[in-house]
């Protein structure tokens, strides 16, 4: 399977007459873009903003981020979600690099939503502050969940996916500036004398009700048993981020499209290791389902003759049991493992870092502490609704606290846990953070 990404390096974005791209300048026809957003009747209000690295702008509640792309063969960018069911990860996809579509609720936030600060002290907490962002701020008629802690954010998130494809269409017929190529020959032909590696991705799937979990070709990952998937499929829109789990632990759709851990393994393939592929697993809550998933992962790894595996977890708390159990079970099967996750050590740093720990999980890369306390000054411009952080149960925020006061102060400054930083722990591989003893 050969997958080519034709990259266009965006350095500037403006609104203008035609949605187009020329030498680093991306121009967006705002009314056309908004028309794509409003194709869904559930969208009641929508506007677009352009924000840039260093801008004194705070975005919240952020629902998802998506890289603008277009597939040259006319296939939908997210098969099974935005269009028909076709194979991802083959052929050519064009991508606008250095930018993303960020979806922000105009009114309502929820447990799973996050904050992005484009400038100042807060910028270092998210990956997305270094991108030029096309910010969709919109509201919907999904009244049933306006006061719910857990929100599907269906209309907003799907609008973001459509918008990313619409903007991507600007470069459909153009010559890319930089090519990336990912080729996976059939497993049976990958006979190089190097250790065989699998990447196990435990994607978020804790919600029993439909509409919240990570999707694979539109399929709710709660309802699958682990499966072998070509990494190219993940890089090419097979996965759409869910709407559950405190934001810093989440993997956005943009994260799936750019998955640094996958790209890193491709880079290493043939040099120090033999990258066999990805085992896509999940993080369900019932014991049987956890054990079944672990069993499938281990059997698949054994069947593929895997020597060593990386297990990455999208979440913390309850899913730590799946994470540690999977590492232990792989070790027990003679497969050497490294874990990739974040920790929850509490505001005081003193809690047990993972809900379940085991001495066989002896090699873990830690990407951050979800409960680290963060205090940030007011931002000049807020896109979305600042009060969502305090009012709507966003996981890192609170309405009031005896010691710390409210998360959102009258002057617009905020105090929150890292939990609410949009995809802040970058467990997909970008994180330059770690956790240390003090």
């Amino acid at each position, binding site marked *: 399977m050969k997958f080519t990404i034709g990259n266009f390096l965006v350095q500037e974005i403006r609104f203008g007459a035609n949605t187009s791209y020329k030498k680093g300048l991306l121009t967006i026809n705002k009314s056309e873009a908004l028309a794509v957003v409003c194709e869904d009747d559930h969208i009641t209000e929508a506007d677009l903003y352009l924000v840039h690295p260093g801008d004194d702008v705070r975005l919240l509640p952020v629902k998802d981020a998506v890289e603008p792309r277009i597939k040259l063969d006319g296939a939908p960018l997210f098969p099974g979600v935005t269009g028909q069911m076709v194979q991802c990860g083959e052929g050519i996809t064009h991508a606008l690099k250095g930018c993303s579509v960020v979806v922000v609720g105009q009114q309502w936030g929820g447990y799973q939503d996050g904050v992005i600060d484009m400038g100042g002290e807060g910028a270092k907490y998210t990956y997305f502050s270094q991108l030029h962002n096309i910010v969709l701020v919109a509201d919907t008629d999904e009244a049933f969940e306006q006061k719910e802690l857990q929100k599907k954010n269906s209309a907003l998130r799907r609008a973001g996916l459509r918008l990313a494809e619409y903007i991507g269409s600007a470069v459909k017929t153009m010559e890319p500036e930089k090519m990336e190529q990912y080729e996976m020959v059939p497993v049976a032909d990958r006979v190089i004398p190097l250790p065989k590696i699998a990447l196990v991705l435990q994607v978020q799937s804790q919600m029993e009700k439909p509409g919240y979990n990570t999707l694979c070709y539109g399929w709710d990952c709660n309802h699958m048993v682990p499966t072998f998937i070509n990494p190219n499929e993940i890089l090419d829109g097979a996965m759409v981020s869910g709407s559950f789990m405190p934001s810093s632990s989440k993997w956005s759709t943009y994260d799936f499209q750019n998955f640094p851990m996958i790209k*890193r393994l491709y880079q290493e393939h043939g040099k120090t290791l033999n990258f066999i592929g990805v085992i896509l697993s999940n993080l369900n809550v019932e014991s049987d389902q956890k054990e079944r998933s672990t069993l499938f992962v281990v059997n698949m790894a054994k069947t593929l003759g895997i020597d060593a595996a990386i297990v990455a977890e999208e979440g913390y708390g309850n899913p730590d049991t799946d994470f540690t159990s999977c590492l232990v079970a792989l070790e027990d099967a003679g497969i050497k493992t490294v874990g990739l996750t974040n920790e929850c*050590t509490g505001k005081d740093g003193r809690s047990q870092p993972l809900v379940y720990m085991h001495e066989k999980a*002896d090699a873990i890369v830690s990407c951050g502490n979800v409960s680290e306390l963060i205090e940030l000054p007011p931002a000049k411009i807020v896109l979305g609704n600042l009060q969502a952080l305090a009012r709507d149960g966003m996981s890192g925020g609170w309405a009031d606290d005896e010691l710390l006061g409210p998360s959102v102060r009258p002057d617009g400054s905020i105090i929150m846990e890292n939990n609410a930083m949009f995809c802040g722990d970058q467990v997909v591989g*970008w*994180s*330059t953070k770690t*956790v240390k003893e*003090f």
Partner: protein
Amino acid sequence: MKKAIVYLNQFFGQIGGESTAGHQPAIKEGGIGPAQELNRQLQHAEVTHTVVCGDNYMVENEEEAVKQILELLSDKEFDIFISGPAFKAGRYGLACGAVNKAVHEAFSVPVITSMHTENPGVDLYKKELIIFSGGESVIAMDEDLKKLAVYADKILTNQPLGTAEEEGYHARGNRHQIWRDDQVCAADRVVDMLLKKIHDQPFESELPVPKRDNVPIAPPLSDLATARIAVLTSGGVVPVNNPDHIRSASATRWGKYSIEGMERLEADIFKTIHGGYDPTAIDADPNICVPIDVLRAYEAEGKIGHLYEFFYSTVGTGVTQSDAARMGREIVEDLLAVDVDAAIMIST
């Protein structure tokens, strides 16, 4: 110039050796012994006073000794309190921990000390206190004092503080996120760790998991009817006057009490000193925790061979793993010496 006060035991405080270990707390102006050297090394503080106390006096009368020390300090102005270094000296380490903890609580000043990793004071106090990783003996004095002085200067001048590893103190289960100076991303770190693990090279997990000691389950007795059985408890049941002064929490000692000729434990003779549960029921009937009554009945029935004439007791709550393991080893040695075949360990 900021002010520092130092705590030393009778030996380093130049009172004398073991024969003076009962010395009561005293405060002297200026730095004595190691405190004098510390004074030289500190750039931003002066050691104004040295508190000296005998190790035995502290260990045997901790509550009173700490109270006396707090009184001695009550009219002094100081910005930091430094104890030790205590090296591997167990009683001295426990004293440094107890004093630092009390001084921090009473005066809200930063407190630091230094001990070798095997000093029992480390396990008992590292969660609450910053305890620098010290040498085994006085040979390491200069090096240990230097770490204390460097860190004290940093605190006193509000300089950024490094991680436990960077500064050199014992990790205390206080984990916070940082950005790595080298900016190496997680994906690179994973590949590096994985390759090292594959090739059996040493690697360091970023989230170390403490090793668990799993004790294998003992094989069954061949014949219960002839076996000599002992009873052990961590429920804190002791003679009412607590003759071994076992602590109600974080105990470091165990006791061994005769039940010779007793058909049951009587309430006016035994009670519990355990601080971690409501004692009402056990004080009314200690057999609820240490079931001598039932075991005597078994003995009479011939169900068990013989009930050993002493029971063993300590308090389980808050005990460090290393103290618990040590007490276990000591008790086992005692039991083996008198040919006990099996023991019943009763928790609460």
